[in-house]
């Protein structure tokens, strides 16, 4: 999936793949955390999302997705920063994960799982 750059003058696509995939992971995290929360908003998991009493569960859900985004980006960037990656495959996965995020944050989808 990753090789060193062939042409030293050209920038490798590793950092770009890392950013895109991290963006997908962060978005999917928002979708999945929201879905799990909404399936049972009285569960221990749901209660643990209330990092702020004023903001409620949204505080934990959003902060987890943001943290997961930046942590995933940092890790992927470290691993791929000097590498040429299979961009087509990685970007497809990233976009699919964005769609997971969109679906997980859509209220009618929650009803399918309740």
């Amino acid at each position: 999936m990753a090789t060193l750059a062939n042409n030293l003058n050209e920038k490798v696509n590793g950092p770009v793949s890392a950013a895109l995939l991290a963006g997908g992971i962060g978005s999917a995290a928002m979708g999945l955390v929201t879905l799990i929360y909404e399936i049972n908003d009285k569960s221990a998991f749901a209660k643990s999302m209330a990092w702020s009493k004023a903001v409620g569960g949204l505080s934990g859900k959003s902060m987890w997705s943001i943290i997961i985004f930046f942590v995933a980006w940092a890790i992927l960037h470290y691993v791929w920063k000097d590498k040429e990656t299979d961009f087509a495959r990685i970007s497809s996965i990233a976009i699919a994960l964005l769609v997971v995020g969109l679906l997980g944050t859509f209220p009618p989808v929650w009803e399918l799982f309740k």
Partner: protein
Amino acid sequence: MDMNVREIWTVVHGMVFGFIFLLGFSGALYMIYSMKPELLTADGIGRTAKAAKVYVWGLALSVWAAVFTGAWVVYPWYRAVPPEGTLDLSTFPKFLLIASESTAKWHEFGMEWKEHVAFIAPIAATVVAFVVSYYGPTLAKKVGERRAVMIFFIIAFVATAIAGMFGAFITKAAAVR
């Protein structure tokens, strides 16, 4: 025409930060799309790349500001619980909406969707800003990367548009006062 602190923050969240992104999106998207040798000279690509860097980072920062002011400033006022026995729910928007069957869906569907989907926008917009900055003018040679970035940017716009649209409708039905 007086506005109180809550109304001012609601305007800052939606009509300043949110609007900056929604209005600026199409120009930035076209800049990225037009970075092609068939459409621009090398000098044009260079100039566009330089301007696009500033533009997309500005839009990304704006949408981060929109979600943070929304979630951490305005939303607590929106969802505040009225004291027991409160009859006038006009300053408790969430409870005003769910008190009536005719308006409950504005919260149960509209706000629930808006408050969650909105967070995808700054994540996606930040990715776009990074890629545009990283490649600079060489983005013109990267067809696949440019396409992926435009998809991310469009999804960021869709998420923001959903949040903005429901924000406007909910404010009409039950404003944060």
